[in-house]
């Protein structure tokens, strides 16, 4: 049984991501920032369910669809929004932008703009746990597209070979930009590949946050016991195009409106909310209240991002080195 507090936390964080991303879209439309942005709307249950099984001392690494993971792990949305705006008050002082959110203070080792590139990095954090003899675990989020990268395969082999405490979370949103995973993945499911490396592979309903949590909790428990990695595939769907603005340049369709609508009927936030209401964990009024709180904090985050200054030219050469050189 998943505790009531945990479920409320998960619902809160999913709503937070949804509202955050909605605000990102609005600010992008109104031209408040430039740069590529990939929203997590529709996929909230994957990161939130998975991260709910972690402690602050555990590590995560992510990918270009980069706002959901840090928020799911409890990151600061004002710093995240300011980073997307390229401002000094952002997580990376405006030097990383949307695709490189990171918060090392709570184990967020950063998002990566190169798909699958953070997978070996997460394996390395797990290797550190093993060498140090510590109990922290490491989790990496990557997409169906990234699952075809060599980095992914090399990492899975290494992690399984050395029994490293890694949880590989494949967010199968079914499209690498516009290419269906059915046209790019050689097996029916990415999770089928786990057996090739000698680790458990689980196909999970990625719209069901509780299912994601339960699968991850078990994987985390195995990892902490030194029993090695697990590959979890959350089958999910992104509501928006690959990136904001892509619709304006894209010439052809790659999915139907009907398919998008069908997936929206299994909206991850609605699913969790309804389950929690039916089990009387929360009431409609509770959900409304917490949504209002989140809406307000997202508004504050946008305001913080707007008013934070851009980094000045004196900051151009800062943060290159830990031990500076001339």
């Amino acid at each position, binding site marked *: 049984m998943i505790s009531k507090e945990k479920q409320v936390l998960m619902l809160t964080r999913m709503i937070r991501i949804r509202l955050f991303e909605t605000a990102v879209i609005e600010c992008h439309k109104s031209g408040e920032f430039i740069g590529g942005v990939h929203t997590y709307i529709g996929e909230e249950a994957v990161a939130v369910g998975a991260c709910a099984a972690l402690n602050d001392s555990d*590590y995560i690494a992510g990918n270009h669809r980069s706002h959901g993971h840090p928020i799911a792990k409890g990151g600061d949305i004002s710093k995240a929004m300011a980073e997307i705006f390229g401002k000094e008050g952002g997580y*990376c002082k405006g030097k990383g932008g949307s695709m*490189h959110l990171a918060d090392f203070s709570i184990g967020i080792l950063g998002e*990566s703009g190169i798909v699958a590139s953070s997978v*070996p990095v997460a394996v*390395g954090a797990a290797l550190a746990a093993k060498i*140090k003899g510590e109990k922290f675990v490491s989790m990496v989020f990557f997409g169906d597209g990234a699952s075809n990268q060599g*980095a992914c395969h*090399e*990492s899975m082999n290494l992690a399984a070979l050395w029994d490293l405490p890694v949880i590989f979370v494949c967010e199968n949103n079914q499209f690498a930009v516009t290419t269906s995973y059915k046209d790019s993945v050689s097996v029916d499911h990415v999770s089928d590949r786990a057996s090739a490396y000698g680790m458990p592979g689980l196909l999970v309903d990625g719209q069901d946050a509780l299912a994601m949590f339960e699968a991850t909790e078990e994987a985390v428990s195995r990892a902490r016991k030194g029993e090695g990695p697990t590959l979890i595939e959350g089958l999910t769907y992104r509501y928006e195009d690959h990136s904001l603005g892509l619709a304006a340049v894209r010439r052809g369709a790659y999915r139907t409106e009907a398919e998008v609508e069908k997936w929206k009927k299994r909206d991850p936030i609605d699913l969790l909310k309804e389950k929690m209401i039916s089990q009387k964990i929360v009431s409609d009024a509770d959900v409304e209240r917490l949504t209002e709180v989140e809406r307000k904090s997202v508004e504050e985050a946008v305001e913080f991002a707007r008013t934070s200054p851009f980094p000045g030219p004196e900051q151009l050469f800062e943060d290159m080195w830990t031990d500076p050189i001339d």
Partner: protein
Amino acid sequence: MKNMMYAEALNEAIMEEMDFDKSVYYMGEDVRASIYGASNGLYKKFGAERVLDTPLSENGFIGAAVGSSLVGMRPIVETLTSFMWVAMDQLISQAAKMKYMFGGQASLPLTIRAVMYYGGGAAAHHSDRSYPMFMNMPGLKIIIPAFPEDAKGLLKTAVRDNDPCIIFEDGNLAGTRGDVLENSEIDSGELLIPFGKGKIIREGTDCTIVGIAGGNLHAISAAEDLEKEGISVEIIDPRTLVPLDKKIILDSVEKTGRLVVVDPAHKVCSAASEIISMVTEEGFWNFQAPPIKIAAEQVHIPYAPSLEPLIFPDKIKVIEAVRKTME
């Protein structure tokens, strides 16, 4: 002073650093059996937990080294330059960029030992001298020791440094010998050579030769011959390319008025190009003759023993270049 081989000096550095700090670990292909020499004895002394034989997955394990360095480990990764191509994503997209990209949050105390084998019939796929490409990418410290003492002292400094360091080791130097200061002869009790400090290998007044890695050996033998002709050569080994000790080079050219750079890497956009460009920008009026670059010809490394030697710098090419600056 202790006379030892280049590879032995590296081995001593690794041993000392693994003794010094438990967060230092060593990984690479065939390192337990130490097929290249520098990891000799590590497995016996430090065991399986800290000396890792890896699968043939350079992108995977170099990425793992990066990730472990983010959370407090100090990995030393052994590889060959030619195998680094398949790990470029982790070296460039992650190791070099992470700290800046994350606004300074990351620290990457990561050392890559990149061994360059060339000149021995290894052909195009195993003869890379790739340091210029990495110099072009901000975020990496580039070390090129040519002598055993520098190999030991700079490798130790790299392991203690908190940024990604790549130490390019010239495979032709592995068996060369030199005197290395013993710890008992050093006030601090250990040999730590700072980055960005070049060394005058030989003093002279007529022409400056900057030697890169194994280029120094050609410079030394050329200088000995040239001395007989009455030409006095000053040899500077910058020892690290990032950071580069500009001052020692500029001061030398100010004295000699002439510059030849001997660099075993391909000549286009090379370390030699950068050094000549730097001196041209910052010390042009000291030139009494155009500077000359003696670097590898811009062609792949052929296997045939009749062809390969034509590519690289050698004593004769260096002598001719110095004579030309004296015309």
